[in-house]
């Protein structure tokens, strides 16, 4: 009788609704189909360990995605991808992968669409160029 094998542990993935909505709004119809399927899959089963690839600390297009992972979609060489930031839950100290970008890997230049790496880079470094209004009354 074969030994009972435990399913491999897979890291849970967090999707931020605001960032996700922004990415889906910019996606093609095919892109949205891919995105919806991957969110369902990752939320149910976690990220596929065998498909997680480290991003470049400095990519060929100047993006800086150190400490990030990516998955190509559909697996394993699809035209889209997600960039996942490695984070730790402050409540229970467990590791999480946070989806910080979904988008095409190589959109046609004529489409004026951002690459998934450019979206991720913008989100990672947005706070560095932003001024913060500390008082909530400023925007009421």
């Amino acid at each position, binding site marked *: 009788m074969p030994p009972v094998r435990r399913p491999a542990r897979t890291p849970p993935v967090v999707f931020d609704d605001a960032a996700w909505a922004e990415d889906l709004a910019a996606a093609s119809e095919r892109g949205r189909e891919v995105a919806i399927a991957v969110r369902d899959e990752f939320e149910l089963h976690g990220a596929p360990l065998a498909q997680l690839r480290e991003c470049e600390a400095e990519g060929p297009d100047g993006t800086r995605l150190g400490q990030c992972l990516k998955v190509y979609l559909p697996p394993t060489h699809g035209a889209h991808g997600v960039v996942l930031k490695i984070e730790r839950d402050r409540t229970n100290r467990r590791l999480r992968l946070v989806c910080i970008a979904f988008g095409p890997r190589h959109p046609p230049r004529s489409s004026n669409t951002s*690459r998934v790496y450019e979206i991720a880079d913008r989100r990672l470094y947005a706070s560095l160029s932003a001024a913060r209004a500390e008082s909530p009354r400023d925007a009421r």
Partner: protein
Amino acid sequence: MNATRLKVRLTESGVAGDYVVVERHQNGGLVLEPDTSLEAIRHRHNLASATVAEFEAEYGPVLAPDGEG
């Protein structure tokens, strides 16, 4: 009139959260969009930065970078 990426945090029930000012009008009106920076995402989900080394220590090795991004 366009604004720089001024960020604001609203606390009113129903609209609480981090936003970016995307338009500032001369009459004082503001147009806001949800802040989708990593900083805001961390705040919403109570997260702190971790590393590839920490991840691999817990889950095993990941594939090496492929030069794409």
